[in-house]
């Protein structure tokens, strides 16, 4: 039995308040969203567990195990997936080197420099938004026509890098523009009000304030495209490279296309190689994401 309010309180309580004081009712409020969100989280967890299970099986198989206990001849060794790993690293590097500066520059132009009321600017913004939704295979076709047939760039790392950079670009522009737009206008007004030039406002206020989401968006776009197979298949990636590409002019190889090429073959040893290549691809993408995380931390310290 809880003592009445007056007894617990150090202050005298007037009789009317004492009369009005009811004991606190235990109980919960109904919250539909609490249950629904818990269910959603559980579904997400189940999907993640499923993926982890499949991967674990693949690792086991790639290491030479099989369902009936006999090891496969020839797993996924460095000799087989090495060229593809090198190719994907090259492609990611090319995507980052091209899509990040061009994408961020375009976003800065659209948000800070262009006059927003110009019809051309608004049309451009709309076009970027739509380009971000164009299926990746279409970029492959465009790359094939423009780069391979038009510019005779060949089925090279260079052509693949350009196609992937073009694929990542609209997303980088869109996420960067959104990050820049999220910087409060009061901050700009305050900076301009102190007599800063546009460049100083952008460099010392807008960019530092938007750096983290810009880096996050770019990182997501780059890892996303590094895992793309479709545009590279259309461009004509080779699936039996015997040496690792050493420069942009070398033949186009990549992990996603390699996974695809091996996975569609009926023989069991190729399935193991596909699994190994898939794991290598996931490791690289994870590495890129972690690198992006460190970059973001570093940016926060360096930029202001």
């Amino acid at each position, binding site marked *: 039995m809880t003592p009445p309010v007056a007894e617990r309180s150090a202050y005298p309580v007037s009789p009317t308040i004492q009369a009005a004081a009811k004991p606190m009712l235990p109980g919960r409020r109904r919250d539909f969203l609490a249950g629904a969100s818990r269910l959603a989280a559980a579904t997400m967890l189940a999907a993640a567990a499923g993926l982890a299970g499949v991967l674990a099986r693949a690792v086991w198989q790639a290491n030479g195990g099989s369902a009936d206990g006999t090891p496969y001849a020839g797993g996924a060794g460095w000799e087989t997936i090495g060229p593809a790993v090198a190719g994907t690293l090259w492609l990611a590097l090319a995507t980052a080197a091209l899509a990040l500066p061009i994408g961020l520059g375009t976003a800065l132009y659209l948000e800070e420099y262009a006059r927003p009321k110009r019809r051309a600017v608004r049309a451009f913004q709309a076009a970027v938004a739509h380009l971000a939704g164009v299926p990746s295979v279409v970029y492959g076709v465009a790359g094939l026509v423009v780069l391979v047939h038009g510019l005779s760039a060949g089925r090279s790392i260079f052509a693949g890098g350009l196609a992937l950079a073009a694929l990542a670009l609209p997303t980088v522009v869109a996420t960067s523009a959104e990050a820049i737009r999220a910087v409060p206008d009061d*901050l700009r*007004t305050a*900076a*301009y009000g*102190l*007599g*800063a030039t546009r460049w100083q406002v952008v460099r*010392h*206020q807008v960019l530092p304030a938007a750096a983290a989401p810009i880096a996050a968006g770019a990182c997501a776009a780059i890892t996303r495209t590094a895992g793309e197979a479709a545009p590279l298949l259309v461009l004509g990636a080779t699936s039996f490279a015997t040496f690792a590409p050493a420069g942009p002019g070398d033949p186009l190889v990549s992990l996603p296309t390699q996974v695809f090429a091996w996975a569609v073959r009926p023989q069991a040893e190729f399935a193991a190689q596909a699994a190994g290549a898939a794991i290598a691809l996931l490791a690289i993408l994870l590495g890129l994401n972690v690198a992006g995380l460190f970059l973001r931390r570093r940016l926060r310290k360096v930029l202001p």
Partner: protein
Amino acid sequence: MLSADRLSVRFGSKTALADVSLDVPAQKIVSVIGRSACGKTTLLRAFNRTNEMIAGARTTGTARFHGTDLYGRTVDPVEVRRRIGMIFQRATPFPKSVFDNIAFGPRAGGFAGDLHELAEEVLTSAGLWADVAGDLDAPALALSAGQQQQLCIARTLAVRPDVLLMDEPTASLDPAATARIESLVHSLKATYTVVIATHDLSQAARLSDMTAFLDAGELVEYSPTATLFTNPRTRQAEEYVTGRTS
């Protein structure tokens, strides 16, 4: 020294300031009073050329500073803002350290002296030095709302403008800090010209030499402060300063 001549500002189709003409004498304090949305902020921002950052804003008429048209073709708005500093109604510290907040304006203007000395001076003027002296590297956003306002005042002083436009600078301060800022404004009068927008009529009466009363974007009365508060020429001003509404 600072003057407006038939100055109008429109935001889209809305007129925020209509044909305002007034003269701010050098080394005087002018207060701008009037109901919310009467155009006080807009008038101050027109002198500091920060209305033009708002999409759809259009300024007509002239604003002069030492005879130069602030909106002239050859005038650089960056220069205008360095000479005519503004403290905005909403205190917006940069998400950086206290020191970097102070240093931003001087650095932008190419200040070559000792930034630490300058920081101590302006923070003392704004009454904030005692609170932050121990840690100038502390994040500005960790300060209280009133301290943030004081920081914003200090940061504008650091640019060393000729004119100081203050938009309700004490609206979020306690009485002690308000008194400090008021005495600061008083002492600034020797070297600066100050235009201060305020809802605090007693503050306007205490501080200013001249008072401008705005209503719905129009300058209703511009008189010496003593006159406007005791013997206003217009009925609207009288009703406003006596707190009567018709």
